[in-house]
């Protein structure tokens, strides 16, 4: 089945130690999104790629970076995680902007 896959499902990292979360999709969608979600709050968009075009949200900290080496994969890099970065990180895709988004299962990040 076509889907959005996130690895790992659970990630524990130390304060200040860089961490990378990965997302892959078999839907061949043009757009890939990264969201941060805390405590059953609404997902907060960090950035998205429309094909190769990177779109950063104005309030996304510089500590968060992203790479999309090809259509199928997208990575979220947190350069120096702080305790406040502990959250669920959700990857989503859509065929085009404005279409419904399909979400992966998420990666729960713990910072110790």
């Amino acid at each position, binding site marked *: 089945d076509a889907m*959005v896959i*996130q690895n790992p499902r659970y990630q524990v990292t130390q304060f200040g130690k860089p961490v990378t979360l990965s997302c892959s999709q078999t839907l061949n969608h043009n*757009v890939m*999104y990264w969201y941060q979600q805390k405590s*059953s*709050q*609404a*997902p907060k*968009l960090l950035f*998205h790629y*429309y094909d190769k075009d990177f*779109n950063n949200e104005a309030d996304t900290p510089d500590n968060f970076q992203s790479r999309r080496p090809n259509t199928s994969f997208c990575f979220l890099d947190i350069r120096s995680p702080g305790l406040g970065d502990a959250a*669920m990180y*959700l990857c*989503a895709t859509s065929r085009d*902007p*404005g279409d*419904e*988004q*399909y*979400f*992966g*299962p*998420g990666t*729960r990040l713990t910072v110790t």
Partner: protein
Amino acid sequence: AQSVAQPEDQVNVAEGNPLTVKCTYSVSGNPYLFWYVQYPNRGLQFLLKYITGDNLVKGSYGFEAEFNKSQTSFHLKKPSALVSDSALYFCAVTRPGFQKLVFGTGTRLLVSP
């Protein structure tokens, strides 16, 4: 600017009864409206969307939503609730040419046996 309001933090309903989860929106231009459901420790699942056409939209798992332009609402409904419908529900809006969704704060639905 786009915005979505979900006025109820939680909705409680008995199994077998109809349920409604409320959503109102604000957008310049024509809205694209969506409902998503989230189960614990899972990603969001797409339920249904309104783009244009019939105001009553049918979606997954027996859910439907009614678009009301005059009231700027897009309430989620189901005729007969199941215990397994208990989850967190998010309404979202975007508009043509806008590249991202704006989510509401979510409504927790609790269906009791």
